[in-house]
Structures are given as C-alpha cells and as structure tokens.
C-alpha cells in the first residue's frame, strides 16, 4: 500500500514513458513499471530503485513498442488508403485548381531536375580518371608589371597553364617523386586528310606517358611501344570512323596540314563531355613544328604540362623541388626579367605552381578548355529555387483558401473522432499526391527541354546518362520536401477548425488571408525581379549588337588561310584576290593576322621613357577600304618596302601616349631602334569586345616582324551572297585543294563573343516567363476563391445598384495594390543585381526609369488579366442566384 513516506518514482521518467509509449499501452506499461518500482523500493535504497526504474523503462524504448499503434492498433494502411481516396476525389472535384498546382509544381520540378543534372555533371568533371588525385597540371605564376600598376588588380601575379617546353622534358629526371609527365599542347584547326576526306581537327601533342596517366581506354592498339617515332598518331573512335568508316585504320596514313604523313597506331575512346582534356587525335610532342627550337628556348611559354606524382609524394616537397628546378633552368632569365621590368627585390619573378586535375575545371582564373566559374552553379541553383518557391507558394495559398471550403468535411471528421494528427496527415498526403503527379509531368518536361537547356548551359546532359537511381532518389526527396513544405501549413490551418462552429454555421467566414497576402507579394516580387533583370539584359544586348563599331562588319566573309608553319599559305591571299578580281559578287579581298574580337599580339614599347602597350594587327593595304575604316589623318599603306617600316595607329594610342601631330613621328615597338614611322591615324573602332574601352592599337604590314596573314577577309555583294560563296569556293578548291573550305561571316564571329551574355539573357527571359506564368496561375486560382467567398457580398452590392465596373474594381483593387507593393520591393534588389551584371561592359546602357514604370504597368496588367476572368464573371452574374447561394 502506498505510504506518504515511501519513495516516488522520478516524474521525468514517467513523462518519458508517456511520451514514447503508444496511447493504448501507456497506462498498463507505466502501471506495471510503477508496481515493480514499489517492490524495488521495499528491498533497496531509493536511489538504486529509481535507477532501476529508469533502466527498466528505457528497455521499453524499442521499435516493437514505438511502432505498435502505427502498425497493429490503428491499422494505418486502411487510413492511408482512405486518405489517398479522399485526396484523389478532391483532386477530381477541383480539377482546375489541381491542374494549376500540379502544372506550376511540375515546371519547378523540371527545372530542378535539369539543374540537378548540371550539378552532377560539374561534379564528375575529370574525376573519372582513376589517378585524378595524383595528377596535376603545372602552372606558371609570374610577376606582371602591368598588373602591379593596375589598382584594380588583386595581385601583381598572372597565372597561366603555359610553360616552356623544356620543363616537361627534364621534370622526371630532376624530381624523383614525379612518376609520369606529359605535355598536352593543343593542335587547333589543322586540316587532316585521308584521300578525299579532308576535315579540320582539334587535337593535342602529348608524350607517351599521357596514356599511362589518363584513363582513356584503347579500343585498338595499346599504350605500350607508342610514339617511338614522331610521325605516329592516335585517333579517337569518332575521328577514326569519320575518315575510315568501317575500314581498319591501324597502319593507315593520314596527311596532316597538307604535308606530313602520320601513321595511325591506335584508337582510343572519345573523351567524355565532362573532361577538361578534349581532342579528336593525339600526336607525339616531337612532331610539334617548333619542337627542336622550343627545347632550347626557355622563354617561350606555350606548352601545358601535366605530371603524375607517386602516391607517397608530399605536395610541399614537390613545390620545393619545382622551385629548385626553376632556379636551375630559368635562374639567369629571372634576374634579367627583374632588371628589365623593375620587379621589386622581395617579389618572386616567376614560379611554377600546380593545380590538381580535379580542380582544373573550377579554377576558372587560369584559362583552360571549359573551365568555368563555380558561381554559375549557385546562380542556376538559385533560379531553380526561386521558381520552386513560387510554385510552392501557389500550392500553399490555394490550399489554404480551399481548406476554408472543406471545413465541413474537417468538422465531420473531427466529430467522428479524427485526431488533429490524422487530419494533418490527410492534407499532407494530398499535397504529396499532387506533388507526385507534378513530378511525373516534371520528369517529362525535363526530358523535352534537355536540348534547350544544353544549348544554354553549353553541356551535353541527358537524363539517361546518369545513374537512374540518383534521379529516382532526387525526385523522391524533392516530392517529400515540396509536399511537406507546401502541404503542412494548409494542413495545420485546416486541422484547427472548430468542428462545432463549422458544422453549425456551415460555411465559416473565409480563412483570413493574412498569410496569403504576403505570399502573393513574395511571389510577385520574385517574378518582378526576374522580369526587370531580363528586360534590362535584352536592352543591353540590343545596344551591344547594334552599336556602331566604326567599321563595316556586314557582308564580310572570313577565311582561315594559314595553319601551323605552312608559309605557303601566306601568299594565298594575294592569289585569292587575283582569282576573284573577275567575280561580280566579290568586291575586295584583304588579309589580316587576326580577325576581329580576338587579338593575339600585344607589344610593349617605350615612348618618352615610359612603357606602353599596344595591340598589333598585321594587315595589308586593302584592309582599310575593305572594312570601311575611316582615316582621320595621313594615308593608307602602299605596297612598297618602305611602308613595311611604317604604322597606322588609332586615336586611343595617341591618347595613351599623349602625342599630338603624330604624322611622321616614329614609334619603337620592335628591336629596330630607328622605329616605325606613323603614316596615318584611324578613328577608333571596336576591334575587341565592347566589354572594354577601345584599346591602343597599331596596324602594320611588316609580316617579317609580326607573322603571316592568317585570315582572308572578303567583302561580298550582300544581294548575292550564295553566288559569292560559290565563287570563293571554286577559287579555293583550285588554290588549296588539300584544305577544307571553312568560312564564317564577320558579323557572326563578332556576335559569338557575346554568346555567354546572350545565354544568360535567354535564361533570364525564360525564368522570368516561367515565374510570371506560375505566379499568374496562383493569382488566378486565388482570385477565383476570394470571388467565391464574396459571392453574397457581390449580390447585395448589385441589388443596391452597383454596376459591373464597380464590382470589377472592387475585386481587382487589392491585387493591383499587392502587385505594386511587390514591384516596389523588388526594385532595389533587381537594380543591384543588374548593375553588377552591366559592370561587365564598358559600354553599358543606363537603366531607363521609364522602363521601370512600364514594367510596373505590365505587371499590373498581367495581374489584372489573371484575376479578370473571375471578376468579370462575378460582376455579370445574376444577383438572385448569388444570394440564393449556400
């Protein structure tokens, strides 16, 4: 019997048992435990008894007990089937709302899936090599006096992946921890021929070690005994098929650059799209046209080099070894550089650093094939999240409003004994079901839009390229998260209804929209943000592509006339000119060392004791007239030997060196101490991207100094472009039968440099469109429900004489106000973001305030259209009917 002085079992343990034990069991379990405790208390100390009590209670904490009410007592499978049945009926009953919800969500899910694919692809970049952790790319890191003077530069050091050729030759002997080393020098646009099959290829010069380091598997041939002679070549399976079809390519010869015969020694698999090393063929580094001379020339930085370290090598040790190596081979040179460029004593002139193979792709500061800023992932992820949030908000606000209409159902369920948890479960199951349906559609949408997305992302993604388990898991998680997020709030609201009130009054007063209003505002703010950004981007791109460039970029055909060190190609321009002189559709032909939008040569020169830099373009006397570049003073080049020692400069160069009256003055930009005479000044024209200001530039016809003319620029008759191209092609076939006829249009080439911006613009337009569409769907549904809730009010107003217009305004006013508030909230964020984007361009538009007002009106109009349908219907309805309603 219980006595007042007998010890008590600890309360908290009892509460603990009450918490975890299913309701059906808790009484008898706790009763038994307490009875046991009383017995303990008789035999042992109170402390020990309590301890025992705790321990014995804890033993009940196990799945069989915890899950008991879920599995055996309540039979939840039965409930679950009831929930799904009711949910399905509800979806069918309100088809339109279900559609609005599922459609919005499916777009959000589709975008999430695509971006998930994108992220998977980014993550697996280069990681497929088994030794990817031991392979490093060497980088040069050198002091750049330009950067040192530039206050905006982060550091005076410049990093690139290009090294002297000799490093790759000596590194294995000099550094014991280096197991393998290979150079990997890009071969760009070289013509390759097998009989009449002539194409341009991109390949790489590599060492034999390349095949030991990377996991590109051999399909034919083997990695051993390879590249013993320089005229051997390994093709990827795709390339082999292109040239040889079904023939066996091994042992066959390919003619490269029109003059060298390479023997095919092996076929390897194509590098995947997620590889930083891209090539269609591989040739020995010894076959590089300037191999011998480059071996001696330690100042020629143009050879990317990779090493594989022993697994036990330490990275700091490797760094020290590299420093020693640099000092040994480049020590003298570094001293000379230090003197010439006045590099401060304590700063390193030059060193070799390294990047792990796995990091190459995201180390975007060092230029490399496909290297991207990982920020893109965050931005893309952010956009996906925005759209998903907007879609979820739809669900939440619609479901919350709808639950007001379902209060009778909730009331009946409650009266029949449904617990709050059960009701929340029911609404949650409904949300899950809607999301699951949306996910199925979303997967379909993702499939259909993969190609479009690939265009944008510059990738080669596919739903089937990834382990299906990953996608399945991702979708399941997505359904769970979205379903929970969007279903929980309406569920909690609905479960709170007072059953007595709802059953007695019938339709309860509408659910307060205190929560839906901010949701609508948030939704519209996000949409407005995307719209403003997209529209400013469109304007900027429009400005960039239509800006007067200072030369005539239209109707110019660009031909690449020269490749590798085939000097013969140089005279081809003159021959094209002569051969096309008779063509009625070709007006002039000129040659240039570089086409537009890229400049490979930049020279330093001294003027009045100061160091300056200028872009240098090697051209011919036909350059200015062909491109309609205006001379401000002086004259054009003439085809005389004397003019080879003269230059034409642009105004920017004169501004840079503050030279007035330039004609006849001399510039010393080569080793020739006399300098080149300035014979003309051209008006500034935009030979580079509009991201930058016009840079100082000079034109020369001195090919001996600056190299050959790589491009032929041909002005054609705009009315007869196909005929002109045909003429050009026939001329090309007779002049250079061994080279493919590859041409492009100058204006297209110039547009290419803005491609990444164009892509972003398209992306923003698309997301803005999607966001506004989803937001409108939500608004449409919401307006329908509020109009329904106000049916009686509208009827009464009409009876008292309100006309349709008044009703229309009454119903729409609130949404106009919400849209405007949302817009005002979005402005500062979008201005901030768009200014950041515009700062990429030197020539940027000002944000036009008129546009912002126009967007506001647009947004209101869109909102009005979305809600208009319901308001017009309500305004025109017969009041007798609406008063009879309920």
């Amino acid at each position: 019997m219980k006595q007042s002085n007998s010890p008590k079992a600890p309360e908290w343990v009892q509460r603990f048992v009450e918490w975890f034990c299913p309701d059906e069991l808790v009484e008898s379990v706790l009763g038994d435990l307490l009875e046991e405790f009383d017995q303990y208390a008789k035999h042992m100390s109170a402390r020990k008894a309590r301890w025992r009590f705790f321990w014995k209670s804890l033993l009940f904490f196990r799945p069989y007990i915890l899950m008991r009410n879920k599995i055996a007592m309540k039979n939840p499978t039965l409930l679950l089937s009831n929930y799904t049945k009711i949910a399905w009926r509800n979806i069918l009953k309100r088809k339109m709302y279900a559609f609005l919800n599922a459609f919005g969500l499916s777009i959000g899910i589709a975008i999430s899936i695509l971006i998930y694919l994108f992220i998977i692809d980014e993550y697996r970049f280069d990681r497929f090599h088994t030794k990817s952790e031991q392979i490093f790319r060497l980088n040069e890191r050198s002091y750049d006096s330009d950067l040192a003077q530039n206050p905006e530069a982060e550091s005076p050091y410049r990093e690139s992946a290009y090294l002297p050729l000799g490093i790759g030759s000596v590194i294995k002997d000099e550094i014991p921890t280096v197991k393998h080393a290979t150079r990997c020098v890009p071969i760009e646009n070289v013509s390759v021929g097998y009989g009449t099959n002539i194409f341009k290829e991109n390949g790489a010069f590599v060492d034999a070690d390349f095949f030991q380091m990377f996991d590109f598997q051999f399909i034919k041939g083997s990695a051993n005994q390879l590249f013993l002679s320089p005229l051997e070549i390994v093709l990827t399976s795709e390339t082999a098929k292109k040239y040889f079809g079904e023939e066996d390519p091994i042992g066959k010869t390919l003619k490269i650059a029109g003059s060298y015969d390479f023997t095919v020694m092996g076929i390897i698999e194509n590098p995947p799209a997620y590889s930083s090393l891209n090539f269609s063929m591989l040739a020995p580094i010894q076959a590089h046209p300037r191999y011998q001379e480059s071996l001696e020339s330690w100042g020629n930085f143009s050879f990317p080099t990779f090493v594989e370290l022993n697994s036990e090598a330490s990275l700091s040790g490797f760094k020290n070894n590299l420093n020693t190596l640099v000092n040994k081979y480049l020590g003298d040179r570094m001293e000379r550089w230090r003197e010439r460029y006045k590099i401060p004593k304590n700063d390193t002139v030059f060193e070799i650093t390294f990047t792990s193979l796995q990091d190459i792709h995201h180390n975007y500061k060092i230029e490399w094939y496909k290297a991207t800023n990982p920020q893109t992932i965050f931005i893309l992820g952010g956009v996906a999240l925005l759209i998903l949030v907007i879609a979820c908000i739809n669900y939440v606000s619609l479901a919350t409003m709808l639950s007001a209409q379902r209060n009778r159902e909730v009331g009946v369920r409650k009266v029949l004994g449904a617990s709050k948890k059960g009701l929340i479960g029911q609404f949650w199951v409904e949300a899950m079901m809607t999301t699951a349906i949306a996910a199925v559609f979303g997967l379909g949408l993702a499939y259909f839009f993969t190609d479009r997305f690939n265009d944008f992302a510059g990738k080669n993604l596919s739903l089937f390229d990834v382990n299906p388990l990953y996608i399945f898991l991702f979708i399941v998680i997505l359904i769970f998260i979205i379903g929970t997020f969007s279903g929980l709030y309406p569920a909690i609201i609905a479960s709170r209804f007072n059953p007595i009130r709802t059953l007695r009054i019938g339709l309860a007063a509408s659910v307060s929209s205190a929560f839906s209003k901010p949701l609508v505002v948030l939704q519209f703010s996000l949409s407005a943000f995307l719209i403003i950004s997209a529209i400013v981007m469109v304007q900027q791109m429009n400005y960039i592509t239509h800006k007067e460039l200072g030369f005539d970029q239209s109707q110019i055909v660009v031909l690449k006339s020269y490749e590798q060190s085939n000097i013969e190609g140089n005279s081809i321009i003159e021959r094209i000119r002569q051969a096309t002189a008779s063509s009625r559709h070709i007006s002039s032909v000129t040659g240039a060392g570089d086409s537009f939008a890229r400049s490979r040569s930049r020279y330093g020169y001294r003027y009045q004791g100061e160091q300056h830099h200028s872009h240098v373009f090697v051209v011919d006397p036909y350059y200015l007239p062909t491109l309609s570049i205006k001379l401000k003073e002086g004259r054009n080049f003439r085809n005389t030997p004397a003019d080879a020692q003269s230059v034409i400069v642009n105004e920017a160069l004169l501004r840079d060196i503050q030279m007035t009256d330039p004609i006849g003055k001399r510039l010393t930009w080569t080793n020739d101490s006399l300098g080149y005479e300035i014979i003309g000044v051209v008006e500034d024209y935009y030979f580079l991207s509009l991201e930058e200001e016009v840079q100082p530039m000079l034109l020369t016809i001195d090919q001996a100094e600056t190299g050959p003319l790589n491009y032929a620029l041909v002005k054609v008759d705009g009315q007869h472009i196909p005929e002109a191209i045909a003429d050009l092609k026939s001329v090309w076939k007779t002049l250079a039968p061994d080279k493919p006829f590859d041409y492009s249009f100058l204006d297209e080439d110039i547009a290419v440099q803005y491609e990444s911006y164009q892509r972003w613009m398209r992306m923003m337009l698309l997301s803005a469109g999607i966001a506004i569409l989803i937001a409108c769907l939500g608004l449409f549904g919401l307006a329908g429900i509020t109009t329904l809730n106000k049916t009686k009010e509208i009827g009464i107003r009409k009876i008292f004489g309100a006309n349709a217009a008044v009703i229309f305004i009454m119903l729409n006013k609130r949404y106009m106000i919400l849209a405007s508030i949302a817009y005002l909230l979005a402005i500062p964020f979008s201005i901030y973001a768009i200014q950041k984007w515009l700062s990429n361009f030197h020539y940027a538009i000002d944000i036009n305030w008129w546009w912002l007002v126009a967007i506001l009106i647009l947004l209101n109009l869109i909102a009005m259209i979305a809600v208009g349908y319901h308001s017009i219907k309500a305004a025109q309805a017969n009041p007798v009917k609406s008063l009879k309603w309920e």
Partner: protein
Amino acid sequence: MSKNYLGEFEELVLLIVGALQEEAYGNNIMQEIIERTGRQVNLSAVHITLYRLEDKGYVKSDMSDPSPVRGGRRKRIFRLTSAGVKVLREQQEQRIALWQLIPQLKF
C-alpha cells in the same frame, strides 16, 4: 506450421497467462516466471512477448478496474483465447508423442 510456431519463452508466458487467470498482467507474469524458473527477465521482454502473442491471436487483453496500488492506473489483463489453448495443447501432444519415441524411458 510456422503460423503455429511458439517460441520457448512465448510458450512459458502463454502457460503462465493460462495459470494466473484473472491475475495475468505484466508484472505478475514476470514475478511468476522469476519464481517458477529462477531466471531473470525484464518487464519489457514480458510485455513485448504478450503483445506478440496478442498479434498472433493466442491471447486477448482487457483493462482491469483501477486499483490504488499503481497510482490509480489500470492493469491490462491477458486471457487465453481458444486459439491459444489449442496451440498449447498441440505443443503438449507433440511433446508427449516425442517422449514416447525415446526407448530408455519406456518400460
């Protein structure tokens, strides 16, 4: 066969439920096991076995009237069902049949 399978401990608990009649609730059953067999058992083990037997349909349970001993908490009283009696009987008959096969003990 597997449906009618009874674990050794389950059989023990089932027998005690039958023996204790109206007094067959968790704590009592545990005490009985400790006294009769001398082995240490936990209350939780007994409970779980009882629930398992209930799931198999060998026992059913009802709540008793409240008593002052356990802080006013009611006891869950377990009773043998006819299926429970049947399975015990089957088990018993099986044993006896097996006993009779052992020659030394038969004279």
